[in-house]
């Protein structure tokens, strides 16, 4: 089941993996001609569209492989790092980089390859990128407000457009094929301006490849992405031990402690029937139905929680709690726990400290002082990073 966790095999294996991937990356960039600034800059004078063709073929190929393997259950997309969206900083940074690209002739990755093949301009450009990164670090405090604004943790194009993932993959495929067609015709026009213009693509391999790409994209769309229950069938085995060892069942006192911890953002989801919820519920709880836990928009919000966010499920039916936990876990919700025994233990547990006169729906931290320190085992362990962080941050 992908993605594999190479870091679990020790540092040297992990580093060797990164080296190997980098090696493949550098080789391909060099083979494509990206170590040569003339080749790269030609993109912006429309004579040689190699940059656009190679980039979009790379994106499209990886995109189809990712969502195809996810669609048939071999890859857990919720574990894949998706660059956070910082809309305006990304836009401004991108414009600055575009200017840097056409003036300097490279981007950071290609300048490494250029430097590796002894191109002096590539070496100088690479040194420039190091200086530029330094200038940024020294000055970021001046504009950190803007730099951290317009942020969404995991915003996919599909979320943005309100399309399904499969439809978005088809859309991206059509966009890429349109770009390729335009690139071919632009090159044809600028290379042989006097030749009669033809709308046809003569290269049969190109036409066939485009057909294959589109067929795969449509297949992904038709097959759909696995439901949470199907995903659990494929990937649940890696989480089952957490349930078996009861490592995700939180004692009520730990819940009270977490709730009173201002450093934690606690989300409590109460799955009990409405009548029971109305009779008594925790002050912090919101009532949800089991169906809602598969709702895209609802889960989207949970996926946006910061690393110190904790989600706790509350229900008196443990089998339902486990099903709910499984359902959310495979959708990428991190720091996910279950309140042990639901609310059945709640009132009896606090009965002997009732003299403190507090609201049972929101016990204050001082209640904890009335219990021995070893009254429960700490289960909540905050994962500092939600997913493997991106390489650029």
């Amino acid at each position, binding site marked *: 089941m992908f993605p594999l966790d190479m870091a679990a095999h020790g540092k040297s294996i992990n580093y060797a993996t990164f080296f190997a991937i980098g090696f493949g990356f550098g080789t391909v960039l060099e083979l494509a001609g990206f170590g040569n600034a003339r080749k790269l800059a030609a993109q912006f004078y429309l004579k040689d569209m190699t940059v656009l063709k190679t*980039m979009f073929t790379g994106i499209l190929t990886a995109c189809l492989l990712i969502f195809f393997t996810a669609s048939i259950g071999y890859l857990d997309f919720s574990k894949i790092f998706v660059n956070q969206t910082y809309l305006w900083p990304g836009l401004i940074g991108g414009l600055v980089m575009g200017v840097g690209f056409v003036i300097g002739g490279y981007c950071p990755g290609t300048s*490494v390859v250029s430097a590796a093949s002894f191109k002096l301009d590539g070496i100088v450009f690479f040194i420039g990128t190091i200086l530029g990164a330094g200038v940024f670090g020294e000055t970021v405090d001046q504009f950190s407000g803007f730099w951290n604004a317009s942020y969404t943790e995991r915003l996919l194009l599909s979320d943005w457009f309100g399309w399904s993932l499969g439809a978005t993959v088809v859309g991206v495929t059509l966009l890429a094929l349109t770009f390729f067609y335009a690139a071919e015709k632009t090159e044809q026009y600028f290379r042989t301006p006097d030749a009669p213009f033809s709308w046809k693509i003569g290269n049969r391999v190109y036409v066939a490849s485009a057909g294959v790409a589109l067929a795969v994209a449509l297949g992904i769309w038709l097959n759909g992405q696995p439901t949470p229950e199907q995903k659990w069938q494929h990937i649940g085995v890696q989480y089952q031990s957490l349930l078996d060892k009861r490592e995700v069942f939180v004692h009520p006192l730990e819940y009270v402690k977490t709730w009173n911890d201002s450093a934690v953002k606690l989300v409590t989801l109460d799955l009990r029937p409405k009548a029971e919820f109305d009779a008594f519920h925790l002050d912090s709880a919101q009532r949800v139905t089991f169906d809602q836990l598969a709702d895209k928009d609802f889960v989207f919000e949970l996926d946006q929680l910061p690393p110190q966010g904790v989600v706790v499920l509350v229900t008196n039916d443990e089998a339902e709690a486990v099903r709910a936990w499984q359902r959310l876990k495979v959708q990428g919700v991190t720091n996910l726990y279950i309140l042990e025994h639901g609310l059945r233990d709640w009132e009896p547990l606090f009965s002997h400290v009732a003299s403190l006169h507090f609201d049972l729906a929101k016990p204050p931290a001082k209640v904890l002082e009335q219990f021995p320190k070893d009254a429960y085992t700490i289960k909540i362990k905050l994962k500092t990073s939600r997913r493997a962080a991106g390489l*650029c941050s």
Partner: protein
Amino acid sequence: MQSKPYINPYLAGALLGVVLFSAFALTHSGLGASGAISRIQVAATAGVAQSHVDRVGYFAAVGGGDRHALDHSSVMMLVGTFAGGLLSAWRNRRLKVEVCKGPQISNTTRLALALVGGVLMGFGARFARGCTSGQALSGGAVLSAGSWVFMFAVFGGAYLVAWFVRKLWN
């Protein structure tokens, strides 16, 4: 010895896509270069003045105190990228000390502009939280909305000024 021609751009793209997919399948995240560049910068600064790295928050996060900025998987990837580029250039007889430039400008002008472009790129890549590889390629493949906006901004920025600097390349 004549250097060999570059391979077909679509074939290169397909290979690039396979490398990118492998990166996701084996490491959870995609490709990247600018994160490692930032780490080299912090390591260089730390070599001159560790106290400065400790004081500036943005640097301290990767190289403050006991942390060594270069001890990171992204740096391994950058070293791998260099090695792959070197081997491929050697195999295809493209290892040659030269300056890639348009015919109308001198080597000095070209190198000066490479430095300016590099500084802009280095700054922009930190500002956008990623470079062409980390944001456009990797984020693009996993359909990150921000990465697609970024990608079009890069092309937009380049096409906006391309006409004004056409003497550099043509």
